[in-house]
């Protein structure tokens, strides 16, 4: 009990460590954002100074916007990320509920099989996935990406969510059964609201890698119509000449939507992390 309140020195030390880490983590982002508002010469001459009246320039943003399809790339990234998250959460939660709630033959085995998916990276199967997508005619569609990301995210989602669902009291589910709720209603109306913090955790864990992924968009959907933001930004990076203004502007813009999504989930996420701490 006496440990609950730590000494001032320890508190300062803890905050110092956290502040240093925050600075280290945010520094690259900061450099990208300030340089995106500078002229090309200024970027190279003084990369670490803030833009002043001389060096300020919106040329990067203008290039990005003139490139025309950038809004389409944004839209594609958004569709792929939100779509994948939706399917990961829906199917992940359903599978987790089945594994946590019902006793059936092979329950344990199924859980282990899904856990295997956490350990084996999906990129190992890229060639096979590409062949499959070619045969089903899904190459160069956003569905190809959504399906792959859903498959990639499911194992961890099932793993985390089933652990949380096991904690939902049996009495509560039985009370629902006695009140005449169907198994689907018990799932959607009793269990899902209670594991919402866990859902948010899973969503954030999956969102950022999907948003940032370059590998699968490059391989499965490189066409102009289906390019994602990360892939679209690559046009400014050439073998010999790189349009740094445009690259930095594109990256700065790419931070915004994912930040917005994060804000949506973060309140739930924090509740999820601390849910075990306070009873």
């Amino acid at each position: 009990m006496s440990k609950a309140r730590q000494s001032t020195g320890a508190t300062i030390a803890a905050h110092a460590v956290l502040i240093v880490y925050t600075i280290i983590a945010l520094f690259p982002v900061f450099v990208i954002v300030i340089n995106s508002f500078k002229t090309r010469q200024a970027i190279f001459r003084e990369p670490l100074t803030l833009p002043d009246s001389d060096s300020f320039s919106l040329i990067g943003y203008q290039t990005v916007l003139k490139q025309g399809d950038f809004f389409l790339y944004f839209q594609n990234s958004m569709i792929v990320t939100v779509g994948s998250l939706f399917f990961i959460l829906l199917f992940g939660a359903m599978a987790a509920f089945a594994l946590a709630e019902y006793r059936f033959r092979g329950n344990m085995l199924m859980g282990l099989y899904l856990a295997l998916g956490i350990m084996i990276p999906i990129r190992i199967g890229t060639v096979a996935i590409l062949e499959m997508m070619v045969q089903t005619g899904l190459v160069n569609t956003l569905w190809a990406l959504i399906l792959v990301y859903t498959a990639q995210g499911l194992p961890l989602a099932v793993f985390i969510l089933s652990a949380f669902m096991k904690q939902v009291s049996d009495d509560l589910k039985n009370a629902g059964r006695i009140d005449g709720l169907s198994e689907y209603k018990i799932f959607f109306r009793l269990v899902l609201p209670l594991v919402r913090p866990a859902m948010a955790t899973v969503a954030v864990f999956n969102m950022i890698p999907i948003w940032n992924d370059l590998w699968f968009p490059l391989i499965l959907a490189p066409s102009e119509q289906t390019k994602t933001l990360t892939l679209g930004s690559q046009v400014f990076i050439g073998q010999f000449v790189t349009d740094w203004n445009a690259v930095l502007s594109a990256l700065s813009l790419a931070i915004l939507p994912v930040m917005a999504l994060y804000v949506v989930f973060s309140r739930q996420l924090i509740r999820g992390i601390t849910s075990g701490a306070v009873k």
Partner: protein
Amino acid sequence: MTALELDKICKSFGSVEVLKDISLTVEDGEFVVFVGPSGCGKSTLLRIIAGLEDPTSGTVAIGGDMVNTVPPAKRGIAMVFQSYALYPHLSVKDNMTLGLKQEGQPKAVIEERVTKAVRMLGLGAYIARRPSDLSGGQRQRVAIGRAIVREPKLFLFDEPLSNLDAALRMNMRVEIADLHRKLGASIIYVTHDQTEAMTLADKIVVLRDGHVEQVGSPMELYNNPANQFVAGFLGSPSMNFLEKSVAGQTAGTILGIRPEHLRLTENGRIRGTITHVERLGGDTNLLVITDADEKLTVRLFGQYDKSVGEATALDFDDSHAFHFDQDRQRIYQSAA
């Protein structure tokens, strides 16, 4: 009409038999308590009646209809859980009305029943609150209210008071008894607490290791237990069992005497030493170790000036003594 009829219910989980051949009837309006030590299968039996668990064999009939294949919601039952099991994200009112809405009851009926239940349980001020804003006793009332509004043929209570503190438990016990009188409903109540069983029940079913030890009214079981288990389980402090302490005792039999039936006398048949004295004001409990090295408890009414280490002699009325054989079964005989 019988509210519930169980016929040869058996239940096993894998190779473990938890219920063995249980047959019971509950009459309309009867308050039946299942009592027994933990792990005796009483909760499993309740869950089978509710339809949350299927019996391995045997039939369950509620209100005269066989309900083995009927889902819980259509059995005409309502259940109150030990953990209350209120829906945490719904208000008190929504908690109570959910089941009725699922049944498709018209709004007016729902409104009327909820108003009635709220008045009966004194929940008026809390109707819009969430369960997390209520105290333990209030939550328990809401859980009972949720059962009342269903107007079931049979109420099932699964250790409803074990999460409450002692004072509240006593209040709720009185309230539940009161509720039973008002509603006149058939109730099955599971508990491991013999006080709850004795005070509430019209009929007690004592269970042990998955089978029924004895069925009867509280006083029948208290005055006339069929075996040593029932004799020892009901009554507080529990009955003393002596194999050799009483002068002139028949070898191989066990003598059972309730603590309140022992008295201090100069020339008593039991001699021993006091090891502990509990002064409760109204009663005095003496723990005694007999000269034959058996422990017993004596409950004396009033206050006594006894101290630890004092030698004492005890006696009892033969009409109050019970005799059991080596298989723990009652030997019916007039006197020792």
